[in-house]
């Protein structure tokens, strides 16, 4: 049975349709990559999956609970089973890395401080930051911040781990390290992982299945091999990096020709 089911999901902002009747099942224990270009609606879909926004119509069922219609207390309970690593890491700057990871443990559990300390150390060790717990977010590099965000997202051992653009703003080596971390976490903790990205190497490294979004609808959903072999024009354009509106050389030449005949050009 799918851990997340999206049915006929429609999202509109100011009358503009962003997501148009999406349907998707994410199976327990799989890594689903939501792939798509800028403005395709992948981050909007993610915000709806984690319950930050409510859709215009349709449903998103997580562990049998419809996020769009559940009560505030149900949503709160559900959120404890979802860990999110944001694109900007979203660590609290006023707290040390250790306290960032400990926050949900202190707030949602009755564990003794010494046990919390131990769990925090373990989570930081998993992401390779065991020696950096006392530092504040502003003292870390971009890659370390993202890893700290992963440690915080894992604090309550969630069933579902969500990554929003994990490789954004990172150099290829650090991005590859983060990909390996995602693969390791999935294998070690058997979590369901959802990753939003537009980075092709990253997507093909970590995904079990890929859902390709274009203008608010899924162009294609399938395994890595199915997506690679897809003959869908939008998928092919994305994979082959073909530009949408290439600058037309004659049009550019005509523009400059016209400009050279204006008075401003002779000033």
């Amino acid at each position, binding site marked *: 049975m799918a851990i997340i089911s999206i049915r006929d999901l429609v999202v509109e902002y100011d009358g503009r349709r962003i997501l148009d009747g999406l349907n998707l099942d994410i199976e327990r224990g799989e890594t689903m990559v939501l792939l798509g270009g800028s403005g395709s609606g992948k981050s909007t879909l993610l*915000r709806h999956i984690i319950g*930050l926004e409510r859709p215009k119509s349709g449903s998103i069922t997580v562990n049998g609970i419809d996020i769009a219609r559940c009560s505030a207390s149900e949503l709160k309970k559900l959120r404890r089973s*979802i860990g999110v690593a*944001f694109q*900007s890491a*979203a660590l*609290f*700057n006023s707290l040390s890395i250790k306290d960032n990871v400990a926050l949900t443990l202190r*707030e*949602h559990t009755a564990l003794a401080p010494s046990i919390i300390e131990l769990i925090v150390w373990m989570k930081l060790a998993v992401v390779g930051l065991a020696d950096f717990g006392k530092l504040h977010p502003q003292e870390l590099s971009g890659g370390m911040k993202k890893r700290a965000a992963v440690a915080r997202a894992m604090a309550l051992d969630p069933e579902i781990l969500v990554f929003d653009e994990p490789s954004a703003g990172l150099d290829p080596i650090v991005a590859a390290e983060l990909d390996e971390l995602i693969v390791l976490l999935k294998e070690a903790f058997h979590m369901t992982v959802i990753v939003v990205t537009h980075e092709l190497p990253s997507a093909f490294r970590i995904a079990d299945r890929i859902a390709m979004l274009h203008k608010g609808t899924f162009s294609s959903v399938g395994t890595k091999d199915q997506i690679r072999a897809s003959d869908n024009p939008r998928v092919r354009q994305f994979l082959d990096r073909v530009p949408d509106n290439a600058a037309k050389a004659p049009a550019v030449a005509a523009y400059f020709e016209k400009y050279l005949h204006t008075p401003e050009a002779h000033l």
Partner: protein
Amino acid sequence: MATLLEDVGTNTLSHLDYVGSLNIQWWATLRAMGSALPFVGNRYRWRESVRQMLQIGVDALPMVALMAICSGFILALQGASELRRFGALYFVIDLVAVGFTRELGALLTAIAVSGRSGSAFAAEIGTMKVTEELDALKVMALEPMEFVLAPKYLAALISVPCLSIISNVFGILAGGLFMFFSTHLMPGLYLHYVLTSIQLRDVLTGLIKSVVFATIIAHVGCLEGLRVRGGPDSVGRSTTSAVVKSTFLVIVADAVFTAIFYFTVKS
């Protein structure tokens, strides 16, 4: 004409929307305040409230004291220049004592706190919004009202009246110095005249005003932060807006409360 009416209508609706949002936020924060209280609330929130009290109250103390001393001198000098003509120089004592306890102590403090802390609230919350920290709180099943707003409001409710009392003391002290140097009135006698001229209700009305001002400053600052949309430039705009709007609303509230006390509390 139609455009003018449309503009008036749009502006009225926008201002009503703002006041409505302030009221909703105030009510939601009041409901979340229990968590920020000592002994019965969450100890991490209380710790945060104390940290805020230090920032709003203790850090503002030198500035508020200096403003009160300068204003006390100005009030005494301006009053003396007129009262001297009628041989009523000793009424300067009443002017300064009653003026500060009823009005100037609370107003000067509110203006200082609005500039220091109102803007800081807007900047802090606005930055948290831009960097997705508020979203991170929500997905960690933590309420931003309880986590961010309640400690700030509680701290303002305690710090601003305390600062107002200190402002009253320094303002009256400045009046005493003026009287000592201009008429050689001894400090003990000055204190006696001060205590005879002010009544308990003067102090109470001043304190009621300072509680209202604290509410306005905390909520306008927080609401401006929560209304940040987009990037860092928007944080700058919301910070300026927080100071302008809270100072304006403090003066409007001051006029309303002064009128209420004038017509309801008879001497």
